[in-house]
């Protein structure tokens, strides 16, 4: 199996608080992995570390075959050079819980900005690609609208289009539906489902258990900075592990 993400013995603290403790996980190309767990378990921090929004204290992280950081002989994480870090950033995407669309840009410009500024595509080429993506995500009629005019679900779909426009090999979702009204989560989950059908490698931090169960190849349950359990949805949902059962019972219908 083609290993697209390798996280090995990664630790991260914020001051006194150990958020990730010697954490390891791998993801293979084409896999959909859901990460579940209570608040403060380190799920978001894990995503942020891989996407370089935080720095690990120690550990080895490799993304799409390139080394993000590795341990020196004292066990401290040493990061790669700027060019490698940038290449890694360009090979993966992150969708935020609060979307973070650029409010002063139209939806179309939100989607074309990075391809034009970073990948140096021409505006026409970027717009053509953007229109295809917006159509696929059901936002064709919103290309000239501004984020404030869109519903939460539409904004999140636009944010996903913006991420897809950069052609990532893997996409991370940090609680993509947690900020949405329940009626709107469906449209976003539908989009993520269609990406899974197209074999996009994805890591999704979510509280939507049914979705996680239906969509994932693997579920990882984290608590207090470590992986408590990981396995197929069936295995995890029927686990006899105390902590896992305790967590999941809040979600049983």
């Amino acid at each position: 199996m083609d290993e697209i993400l390798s996280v090995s013995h990664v630790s991260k603290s914020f001051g006194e608080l150990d958020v990730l403790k010697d954490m390891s996980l791998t993801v293979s190309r084409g896999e959909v992995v859901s990460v579940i767990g209570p608040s403060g378990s380190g799920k978001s921090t894990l995503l942020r570390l891989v996407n370089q929004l935080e720095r690990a204290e120690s550990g080895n992280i490799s993304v799409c075959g390139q080394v993000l950081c590795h341990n020196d002989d004292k066990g401290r994480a040493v990061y790669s050079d700027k060019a490698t870090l940038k290449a890694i950033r360009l090979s993966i995407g992150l969708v935020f819980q609060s979307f973070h669309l650029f409010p002063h840009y139209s939806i179309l410009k939100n989607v074309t900005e990075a391809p034009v500024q970073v990948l140096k595509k021409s505006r026409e080429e970027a717009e053509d690609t953007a229109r295809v993506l917006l159509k696929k995500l059901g936002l064709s009629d919103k290309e000239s609208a501004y984020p404030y005019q869109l519903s939460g679900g539409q904004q999140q779909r636009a944010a996903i289009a913006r991420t897809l426009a950069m052609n990532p090999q893997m996409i991370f979702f940090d609680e993509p539906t947690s900020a949405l009204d329940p009626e709107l989560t469906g449209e976003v989950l539908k989009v993520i489902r269609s990406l899974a059908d197209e074999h996009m490698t994805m890591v999704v931090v979510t509280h939507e258990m049914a979705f996680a169960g239906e969509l994932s190849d693997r579920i990882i349950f984290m608590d207090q900075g470590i992986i408590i359990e990981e396995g197929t949805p069936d295995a995890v949902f029927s686990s006899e592990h105390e902590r896992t059962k305790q967590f999941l019972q809040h979600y049983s219908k």
Partner: protein
Amino acid sequence: MLSAINYSSMITFLLDGTVKAVELFFLTIVLSLPLGLLVARLRMIKFKVIQLPVKFYLLIMRGTPLILQLMFFMYFPPLVLGIGVDRFMVAVFSFTINYAAYFAEIFRGGIESIPVGQQEAAYVLGLSPFQTFIRITVPQVVKRIIPTIAGESMTLVKDTALASVIGVTELFRNAGSLKATYSSVIPFAVAALFYLIMNSVVSAFFSQIEKKLNYYKG
């Protein structure tokens, strides 16, 4: 008393002063806004070597009267350095570095009010810190600080009167000369009207900008 005033020459003389004030205003704005943005950016750099001088500059500029700063820059070069200076240039210089300090803190407040998620989203998309600052952060900051900048600009129009203490022949000084000539306060009343007209234009200008920037919310 009133019959002694030659109104047309009074108006002309006051207009000359107004032109000087407007020149001073424009030069100051054009120079101090970019300088203020630069200082704001420097203020946010996490090295004490840069932060301390910047904070010192901000404290001096905002903590001492502008009128004294004008006098300092007028008398320091000839008295201490033995070089002559042009009054108007001194005024432009002194106003610029003073207003840049105020603009710097306004910009910094605006920049810090932009949600960090904006920078994070730009970062994960691959935009460089410079691209993020110029294309994502600054446009949003501008929209937020326009009302405050408008207020500072109107204060600047009125502050041009302070240049009179170093002999710049702007509106206030000219009104003062006319008062001496005619023994009447009417020139000051007319000067007040001219200041009001200048500030009405400034106010209307910024209202227009605010309207234009309302094409989006947030």
